[in-house]
């Protein structure tokens, strides 16, 4: 059986599934239950400065987007960092870590952007025996209005500065958690690296309004008739998170820095995908909040089975395996020609491919009087929309044309060799003249 042991920036955990810094990791009771359920590690809910704790709203903190049968696809929240006393949290962290020495215990921190503030809290955290810290530079609501969280994460210079302080006043690994509410995720990642961070974790939540109540005209979640943008998370954000992870993994300036993947990870498969894009481990929150801690059992069994099936003995065997295949559009092979193919045995004649192609794409699917749908190769640009809207898995597939055959759409021979936009004759900036 595959060994799921994860060693991330020197921190070992029995599996790569950590609970992200969030409501599920706010206190000893939850974290002990999480460890009992099998989670490999937790990032404790963000600690703030000593003194009066922050206060949360006393109305709804979460809003949701649903799919069929009220399946939760996206969650947003306006909860702040821990609203419990700093010292209570520190004592609990110390106790739990002592009782679960094999699990990863990371402490998330957010204090004002002043060296003194960090200098003050870091020794206290060091004293808990926790394995590392995560800097919350991502929280997009509430704390950012006070110059913390995403307000820091959106300024690379601040990230570098604070990271440097942390490396100076704290001896163990420092993970910088990045906000996605930024144009180019590589900039804050590079800043973290420059500041000496051991790793970045991403993504934090995305600014969002989940819905507007059309009776009260209040955004949801509604606090006395008003709403504030909250942090969006859950399955809906996974594609955004994976793209950002891949950008950091493949950019020369940031590649090599350890990445802890976060963003809509719900199943073992999601986790594996993040890892192939370079993540050493993953952090989960919404899935646990939706289904409870038990889901980690499926994540462990699923990842283990898949690794066995593929012959991977450790996570390092496949970590980053997909990174070389993430490229810029300009390097995609323009000589690769595919055509949609409809498997008539699987087709249930719903006609969705036809409606999509006829109304919104390339008029490349025909419909007969008896509802047989066929691809018109001479029109098909292989856009894949028919595959995407078809309700039957594998009924429509994209089949690559054999080099040497003629594409009936362009009436040109399908070339066997790779050629991309950089050398294309239509490109005014082509680096090589066309033959």
């Amino acid at each position, binding site marked *: 059986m595959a060994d799921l042991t994860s060693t991330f920036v020197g921190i070992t955990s029995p599996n790569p599934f950590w609970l992200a810094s969030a409501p599920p990791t706010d206190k000893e009771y939850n974290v002990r239950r999480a460890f009992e359920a099998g989670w490999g590690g937790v990032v404790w809910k963000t600690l703030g400065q000593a003194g009066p704790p922050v206060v949360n709203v006393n109305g709804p903190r979460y809003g949701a987007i649903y799919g069929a*049968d009220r399946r939760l696809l996206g969650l947003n929240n306006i909860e702040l960092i821990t609203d419990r006393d700093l010292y209570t949290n520190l004592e609990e962290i110390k106790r739990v870590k002592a009782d679960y020495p094999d699990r990863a215990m990371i402490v998330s921190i957010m204090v004002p952007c002043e060296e003194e503030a960090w200098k003050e809290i870091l020794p206290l955290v060091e004293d808990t025996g926790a394995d590392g810290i995560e800097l919350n530079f991502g929280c997009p609501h509430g704390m950012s209005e006070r110059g913390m969280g995403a307000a820091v994460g959106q300024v690379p210079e601040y990230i570098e500065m604070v990271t440097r302080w942390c490396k100076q006043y704290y001896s163990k690994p420092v993970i910088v958690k990045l906000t996605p509410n930024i144009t180019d995720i590589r900039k804050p990642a590079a800043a973290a690296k420059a500041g000496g961070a051991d790793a970045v974790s991403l993504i934090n939540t995305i600014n969002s309004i989940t819905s507007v109540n059309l009776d009260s005209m209040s955004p949801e979640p509604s606090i006395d008739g008003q709403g504030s943008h909250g942090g969006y998370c859950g399955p809906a954000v996974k594609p955004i998170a994976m793209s950002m992870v891949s950008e950091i993994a493949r950019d020369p300036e940031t590649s090599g820095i350890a990445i802890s993947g976060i963003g809509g990870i719900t199943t073992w498969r999601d986790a594996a995908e993040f890892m192939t894009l370079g993540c050493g481990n993953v952090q989960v929150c919404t899935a646990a909040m939706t289904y409870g801690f038990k889901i980690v059992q499926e994540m462990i069994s699923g990842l283990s089975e898949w690794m066995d099936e593929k012959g991977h003995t450790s996570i390092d065997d496949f970590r980053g395996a997909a990174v070389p295949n993430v490229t810029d559009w300009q390097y995609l092979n323009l000589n690769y020609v595919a055509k949609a193919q409809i498997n008539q045995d699987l087709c*249930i004649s*719903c*006609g*969705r491919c*036809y*409606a999509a192609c006829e109304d919104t794409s390339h008029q490349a699917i025909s419909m007969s009087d008896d*509802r047989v749908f066929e691809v018109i190769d001479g029109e098909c640009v292989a856009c894949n929309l028919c595959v995407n809207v078809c309700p039957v898995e594998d009924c429509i597939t994209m089949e690559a044309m054999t080099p040497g055959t003629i594409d009936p759409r362009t009436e040109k021979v399908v070339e066997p060799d790779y050629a991309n936009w950089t050398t294309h004759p239509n490109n005014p900036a082509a680096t090589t003249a066309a033959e």
Partner: protein
Amino acid sequence: MAHSPFSPGVAAGRLDADAYQDNFSDLHPALDPHEALVAADRCYFCHDAPCITACPTDIDIPLFIRQIATGTPDAAAKTILTQNIMGGMCARVCPTETLCEEACVREMAEGKPVLIGQLQRYATDHLQAQDVHPFTRAAATGKTVAVVGAGPAGLSCAHRLAMLGHDVTVYDARSKAGGLNEYGIAAYKAPDGFAQAEVDWLLKIGGISVEYETALGADISLDGLRAQFDAVFLGMGLGGVNALAIDGGDRDGVLDAVDFIADLRQAKDVSALPVGRDVVVIGGGMTAVDAAVQSKLLGALNVTLAYRRGRDRMNASVFEQDLAASKGVRIMTHVAPVALHGNGSVREIEFEYMNDDMSGTGQTVRIAADQVLRAIGQTLEGDVLPALDGGKIAVNATGQTSVDGVWAGGDCAAGGDDLTVTAVAEGRDAAMDIHARLTA
């Protein structure tokens, strides 16, 4: 209870009160809002959807289901009712398994169609519960139309004509409107007075007056109507029943299934309805199944549905056959009745086993029967009618009969399945043709 299922002969009160209550409650309980959303979400919103083609009234099913899915069931109801003003009843009685749901691509894909009938009911019930009528009449045309028969065909025709601005007088031989919806379908398909509630709601369009207990041929004549009105629509259904021409066919205990069902539908207290211990229903259509199932639900110990051909030839849908079987009705096929035996009242029925080609095998069988219900087809009554075709009024595609100014639809007209939904479609289409004629 005065009797039990074992009490011999024809007797009432065979069950306790709770059993009657359970037996005659809704066959398909209404979907609750969440169930409706889940069911609606399964619709693929097919292009040029096969379910629409399969619906005799061409309801835009994917559209109304999407309207349910997006939280606007009243808009869904309007989509339905625009095509089929009796969408509420059709949602209850349509053999959806041979119409829209059979055509549903999910039936092909996984053998589980979208619950179109139940979703239609969800939408129409939602609208009807608000006791508002969603349509308004066009400006008055000054034209008048007589509609004979207040069943699905007649009411559909009347509603459409009234909506288009014509004044309509509906004549019905019975004391209530609704036709077979009120008198002819199983009680558990439309409990709680739904048929009358739907009629009342439908008539809210205005411009329709109903004359009860006025029968064509007795109280009014086709010529008289033609003279008095600008157009006439005949939708009086099939008033006659086929006789059972065998030895002993007139014994006590033998009655028409349609009367049995009508009595049951009109009964204030079903426990007061007498039913045999050993009931035999002769026939293979929906009426036969409705009578057989309801005999069982009234407490008959043994109910046999006897049909002269195989199950595949029965007019009752497979769903109906399975429903009967699940209620404990024995379906006996390839038997034709040859005699009823008994001393005054019927005690036994004798059948001959039949070959597939309807020739007799010469072998006979007798089974106990203290009540025999005939469901062997209905016939058109009346002698002064437009030209007939196969015993029914001949019509063209828009319902015109051989008599100028006279249209017909529903069960009394030739062609089409004898379904509620078909009758609604024929009434509606005839109305559109009448309107075209009157406003030409």
